[in-house]
């Protein structure tokens, strides 16, 4: 007969704690990406780990570099509009607007109220679409699948609206220098209004699924904290900067396109961790809806492009086909490009991902001499080297999700 032996486990916790200091760990190099679900695009991370803790993280970028700045130097101002779609490809409309305003500032054109209101509306719709995707995949990075399905469904409705307005769902190319491609179609504003009325219901569902979710909270609270000083020093912008407690929103502080007429709040975080970045984006969606309602309620009538911008904005089609003068004007704009005076300009717009800046040097004529695109995601990723060390590898997934970057814009 077998004899029974009693096995005692003793104090497991104290033993494992003791063992931990004894187990020699080996430094390990890990290569994440460039094609990896965590990296949201083609970002590559060279990571050094001590056990499960990241000791060094070096982002390697450039896998999506297309030379947009070089290309810009060889084509007319209007021809470059489709290239701006492909910067932050999650909010092409906002890029179109930022680019158009930069060139218009160089040419000292102001577009009429209707055009400005329309631009504000499409910027805010782009912000909705970008943040809806951003929050959805952020939830997914932290292990929550359902919110993604909810936000993606809403984003799909937005793309239908974009298609009705611009003719394209994704690569909209909607603005021209001095205006937009076409006026709003009939009944479109009503559809946007309906969408804005229905969106809060879904947002509340997402809010219930994520905001007080214990798992999501534990994975994001206190993770990836960025101090105010670091955020400024590394040039973070947009929601990433505001989550650190800095009140800087270019729509409020450097209003463009008539943003000063609209009433909205700028949400600010308190600690600058991943959870704050989530909360700030969530609140920004509600504020965007508020702006959309205000724009639609007092949507101005009148012209939607700068009528006095001769040699810059093409005249109406019916006049091109019937009048010699307008035909010549249109011909010149298409072949030689909008005539922009000599000078240089730097303009930043508050895009969903942060401040998208265009620095344009013109020597006159229809082609820029030099164009620099200041991408918010580029700056957001540069802080990774500083903030990642000390976190667990699994936290890195959440940190990347919370920064909400897009590689098309980072690499240009």
């Amino acid at each position, binding site marked *: 007969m077998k004899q029974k032996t009693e096995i005692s486990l003793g104090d497991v916790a104290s033993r494992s704690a003791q063992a931990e200091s004894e187990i020699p760990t080996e430094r390990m190099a890990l290569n994440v990406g460039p094609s990896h679900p965590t990296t949201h695009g083609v970002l590559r991370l060279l990571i050094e780990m001590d056990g499960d803790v990241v000791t060094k993280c070096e982002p390697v*970028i*450039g896998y999506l*570099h297309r*030379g947009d*700045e*070089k*290309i810009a*130097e*060889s*084509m*007319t101002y209007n021809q470059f509009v489709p290239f701006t779609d492909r910067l932050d490809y999650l909010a092409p409309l906002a890029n179109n607007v930022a680019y158009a305003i930069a060139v218009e*500032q*160089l040419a*000292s054109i102001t577009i009429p109220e209707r055009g400005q209101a329309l631009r504000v509306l499409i910027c805010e719709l782009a912000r909705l679409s970008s943040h809806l995707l951003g929050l959805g995949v952020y939830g997914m990075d932290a292990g929550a699948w359902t919110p993604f399905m909810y936000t993606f469904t809403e984003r799909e409705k937005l793309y239908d609206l974009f298609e009705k307005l611009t003719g394209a769902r994704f690569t909209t190319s909607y603005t021209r220098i001095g205006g937009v491609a076409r006026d709003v179609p009939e009944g479109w504003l009503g559809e946007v209004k309906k969408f804005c009325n229905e969106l809060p219901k879904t947002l509340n569902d997402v809010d219930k699924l994520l905001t007080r979710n214990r798992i999501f909270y534990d994975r994001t609270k206190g993770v990836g904290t960025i101090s105010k000083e*670091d955020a*400024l*020093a*590394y*040039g973070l*912008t947009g929601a990433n900067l505001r989550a650190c407690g*800095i009140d*800087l929103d270019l729509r409020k*502080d*450097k209003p463009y396109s008539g943003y000063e007429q609209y009433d909205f709040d700028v949400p600010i975080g308190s600690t600058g961790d991943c959870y704050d970045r989530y909360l700030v984006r969530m609140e920004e969606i509600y504020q965007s809806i508020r702006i959309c309602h205000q724009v639609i309620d007092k949507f101005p009538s009148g012209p939607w492009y700068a009528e006095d911008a001769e040699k810059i904005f093409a005249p109406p089609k019916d006049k091109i086909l019937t009048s010699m003068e307008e035909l010549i004007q249109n011909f010149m704009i298409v*072949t030689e490009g909008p005539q922009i005076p000599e*000078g*240089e*300009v*730097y*303009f*930043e717009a508050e895009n969903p991902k942060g*401040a998208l*800046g265009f*620095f344009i*040097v013109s020597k006159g004529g229809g082609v820029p*001499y*030099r164009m*620099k695109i*200041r991408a918010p995601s*580029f*700056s957001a990723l*540069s*802080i990774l080297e*500083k903030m990642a060390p000390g976190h667990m590898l699994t936290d890195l997934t959440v940190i990347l999700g919370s920064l909400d970057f897009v590689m098309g814009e980072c*690499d*240009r």
Partner: protein
Amino acid sequence: MQTAPEFLRNYDFLSERETGDCPSVLCPADRVIEFVKELRDVHGYDMLVDLTAVDWDKESPRFMVICHFLSSQKHLYLRVAVNCPEDESPEVPSLAEIFPAADWHERECFDMFGIRFKDHPNLKRILMWDDYPYYPLRKEFPLAGIETPLPSAEIAEVTGTKVKPAPMMGGPFVAPAEGHVSESEPRARDESWTEDEPKPAKKIPETKRQ
């Protein structure tokens, strides 16, 4: 609120630049560190939002580094331009010590223009691969690119491929009005070559890697 004329009065090494938007000053390369420190600590320009360069081609000084500062409290932009003293091997002091944001922007500048930043902690290419021999945003670099070996020597050996220039050189594209539709695809104005018959090679001196 400091506007450009006030800066000019306080710092005699600065000179004003003509500009249409924000105040813009030109700072000599050897004083830029001192000036930018003052900008951050005294004048409240606490963000370096952008740093880039312009290649003025035939002019001298050829390269100009341009930084944009933003004050997060006063919401003012300031443009600081720095001429690179030498045209052949341009070099300016690095701002990465004062603004960590400058780190990546300067690497990009080095990558695209070949401007070296003195005392930069990690000056290497950022968008192009490490062994890339040219500086693409210099004016003499053609839009289509220049044939170069693949970044990975192993793959190049097996496949025998190279990085080829894009078949689109020549600027604004033209479409012939006559002929069959398949013939009237927009194409480059320069028709001295096709994809089958390569373009006669234009010699561009390979930039020395330092």
